[in-house]
């Protein structure tokens, strides 16, 4: 038993997928526990907190993101089947969706135009670089779609993905507060709004704290926004002459 082997052991283990997988789960458990301790405040959302904890851990341990992702990809992979599974709550609430089809479609168009218009407007007013501007434009769309759109209109796909994640965090923090302020109590409206403005983050937040009906509408909002933005945004940037 010698102690020198310990740091060699760490060098070996820190590159092992097991460490990042375990760290992700432990960070999530810690973040959920902390969030409950703080009275479930949306400002310290478990996802944001876990991400912050993990970034801190990776920087301290000197593990780079690609090494981390080798382990964490097993969790990341489940996003695919989970997205497909959104069809289940959607099917459960199909009657409600049918009855509200027109409000849903119109609210979706209004939301997308607001999201893209105000983003481009504000960023241009404050003098953002053109690449940043175009990477910001698809920010309210779920990241795989956003990356495709950013590439199409001339932004930086990887930056767009990062901004999408930040948007999701901001939406989770602001959403419940704004909905309460506006006295929106219908779970279908709450869910749809969260899904449209904060994509997967908002959807996950709805399932975790607003119930299955809100979650179903959030999933619908996310999917519809993704599909419509993919067609609308290139059109809008052309119209605005960007």
């Amino acid at each position, binding site marked *: 038993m010698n102690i020198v082997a310990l740091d060699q052991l760490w060098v070996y283990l820190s590159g092992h997928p097991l460490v990042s997988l375990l760290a992700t789960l432990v960070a999530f458990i810690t973040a959920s526990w902390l969030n409950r301790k703080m009275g479930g405040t949306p400002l310290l959302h478990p996802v944001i907190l876990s991400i912050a904890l993990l970034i801190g851990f990776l920087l301290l341990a000197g593990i780079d993101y690609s090494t981390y992702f080798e382990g964490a990809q097993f*969790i990341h992979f489940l996003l695919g089947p989970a997205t497909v*599974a959104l069809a289940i709550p959607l099917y459960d609430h199909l009657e409600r969706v049918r009855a509200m089809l027109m409000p849903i479609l119109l609210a979706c168009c209004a939301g997308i135009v607001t999201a893209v218009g105000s983003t481009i407007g504000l960023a241009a007013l404050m003098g953002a670089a053109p690449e940043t501007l175009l990477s910001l434009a698809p920010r309210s769309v779920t990241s795989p779609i956003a990356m495709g759109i950013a590439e199409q209109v001339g932004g930086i796909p990887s930056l767009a993905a990062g901004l999408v994640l930040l948007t999701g965090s901001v939406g989770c923090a602001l959403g419940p507060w704004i909905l309460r302020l506006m006295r929106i109590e219908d779970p279908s409206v709450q869910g749809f709004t969260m899904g449209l403005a904060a994509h997967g983050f908002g959807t996950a937040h709805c399932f975790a704290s607003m119930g299955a009906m809100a979650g179903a509408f959030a999933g619908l909002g996310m999917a519809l926004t993704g599909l419509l933005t993919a067609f609308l945004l290139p059109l809008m940037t052309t119209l605005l002459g960007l």
Partner: protein
Amino acid sequence: MPLIVGMSLLLGCQFIGELLARGLAVPVPGPVLGMLVLLLALMIHGRVPSALRHSGEGLLRYLTLLFVPAGVGVMVHAQLIMADLWVIGVTLVVSTALTLAVTAKVMSWLSQRRLRRGTGA
């Protein structure tokens, strides 16, 4: 076994979704098309098989966890984001707040008007 059957159904739909996305060269990710495929299948089948519900709802319960690995990726873009920090920060907060408010307002206004018309007629 129900977990395996359910998971196979979900992955199968995702597979069809990926095939459609690649085959038709549409800029929509495979899982989103897979979700539409599953929804269509459920509408034809008429109910949700219990194996599918079991694994699907299990995944959705932990949906927040699944976003963590991608979220940690923000650290890679730290420099790009720092360069335009203020612009990005203000834009994200103001524009997200506006988007939330407009969407909620339009949808609740339209759905209430629809309800009133439905009961008033």
